[in-house]
């Protein structure tokens, strides 16, 4: 890097104007890239967070509603008919998958084969639970990645910015604070953005991981109960 370029690019910052925009604008392109990347990460983290918060609260509510409907003594056939067109939450999807398998075994073929029906229903329900959990957990890895890597990326930007500011000291042959301070401020700005992106990401990741775990257990519980009901039915008919 040409020392003259360094001096030219850094010296304008020696003016007392140190707003965020000028901090960003006078930074080296590597630091700019880091800052932009971290900014995009932050935007994406918050988008995921908003999406997940809304999604989990809705899912919880609809699961509550479904469970009250399920245990209200309403006919399972009716419930299946009302939900089969579009299961809008995980528990409904689980119920529909199990009922479909049950119906297929009873209605599809003339000779009723009860042998293995219980196992098949369990299998279907396991698969559905896994798929639903995968849906709930989608994009949570982004949060984890940003939360752990964000500070390091910001630190990289800081190190690079401080390197540049030292080069500018060498170029201007002047160690006064007015020459050093803008470069360091610009460098620290990268770390600040990294922390701004990483802290919410870590917090949201922990919160959402707990939420997913809770919902997965709820689904497992429902699957076990429904499996017990169906098993009783099979034994009664068979």
């Amino acid at each position, binding site marked *: 890097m040409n020392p003259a370029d360094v001096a030219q690019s850094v010296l304008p910052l020696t003016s007392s104007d140190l707003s965020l925009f000028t901090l960003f604008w006078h930074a080296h392109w590597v630091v700019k890239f880091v800052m932009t990347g971290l900014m995009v990460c932050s935007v994406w*983290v918050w988008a*995921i*967070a908003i999406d997940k918060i*809304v999604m989990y609260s809705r899912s919880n509510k609809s699961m509550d509603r479904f469970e009250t409907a399920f245990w209200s003594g309403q006919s399972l056939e009716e419930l299946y008919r009302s939900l089969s067109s579009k299961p809008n939450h995980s528990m409904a999807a689980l119920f529909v998958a199990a009922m479909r398998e049950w119906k297929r075994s009873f209605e599809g073929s003339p000779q009723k084969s009860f042998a293995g029906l219980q196992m098949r229903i369990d299998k279907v329900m396991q698969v559905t639970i896994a798929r639903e959990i995968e849906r709930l957990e989608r994009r949570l890895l982004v949060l984890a990645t940003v939360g752990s890597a964000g500070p390091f990326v910001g630190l990289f930007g800081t190190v690079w910015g401080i390197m540049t500011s030292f080069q500018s000291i060498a170029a201007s042959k002047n160690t006064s604070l007015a020459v050093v301070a803008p470069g360091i401020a610009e460098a620290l700005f990268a770390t600040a953005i990294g922390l701004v992106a990483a802290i919410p990401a870590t917090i949201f990741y922990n919160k959402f991981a707990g939420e997913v775990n809770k919902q997965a257990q709820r689904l497992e519980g429902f699957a076990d109960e429904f499996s017990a009901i169906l098993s009783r039915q099979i034994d009664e008919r068979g």
Partner: protein
Amino acid sequence: MQIKTASALSTGLHVLVLAWATLSFSSKPFETTPAESLPVDVISEKDFSQLTKGVKDVPKPKPVETPKPIVEKKAEEPPKPIDEIKPLIDEKKEVAPAKEAKQEPPPPVEKPKPAEKPPEPVKPLAEAAQPQPLPPKKPPIPKPPQKQPEFNPDKIAALLDKRDPTRRAVTGAEVNSQPALGTASGAAAQLSQSEIDALKNRLYQLWSPPAGAQDAGKVQIEIRIKFKRDGTLASPPQVLTSGSGPIFNAMRDSAVRAVMVGQPYTMLRPENYEKWQEIDFAFDSSRMYSDIPVRRQ
């Protein structure tokens, strides 16, 4: 909820936060209220430790200077009219007899009138010449009173002063009726630092302590030196420090030798002979050229 709407929401939120940060984060330069500058005098240690004796509030020397011109005028003016007039009278006196001598011979022969006339203007001159002290004194005496009438209340003391107007003003290096600037308790010698340093340098140059003196550690030999006004010694140097041993003896003898060899001490000014007629000087083996005080007894 679609992830797209969430992204849009998040972007909007970030833009809002950034806008707020840009507005609020604009750094202001630190404002430092400039402290009032205090005038500081750098005073060396000697200014404090070596204060000359005197009064703290010395009246400024101006009042001493203002009476002086009055005294000078009084002393100079009276003789002037006497000196100026006397030669005039003398010249005229000389001229008058000459004219009489020249003009007298012709009148008896041809012109009696011109002979009579010349004596008329000469008469007053001749009269003036005959009673020398009385008549010419009158015009010069009224002159000084004519100049005095401008009455200056500040000069009352000078006007009332009945002492001889021609006396010399009381100013000088040694006798001074004016108090000097200094503290009430100061006791330092009024030898200037350069004189002290010069004396110290001279004595230390001449002093060759014996070779073993360095091992003897700090040995101080104080010698009382009495000077005559011309800078030579008034009496043999007197060793004040008492001690024993070959090293001490050798050092003592070398110090005495140095004092003897160094005379006359021309760096000491005879004007302030009182200050240096007796000096206690300390030869210090450990600090050959360091700051050793010279004390006046």
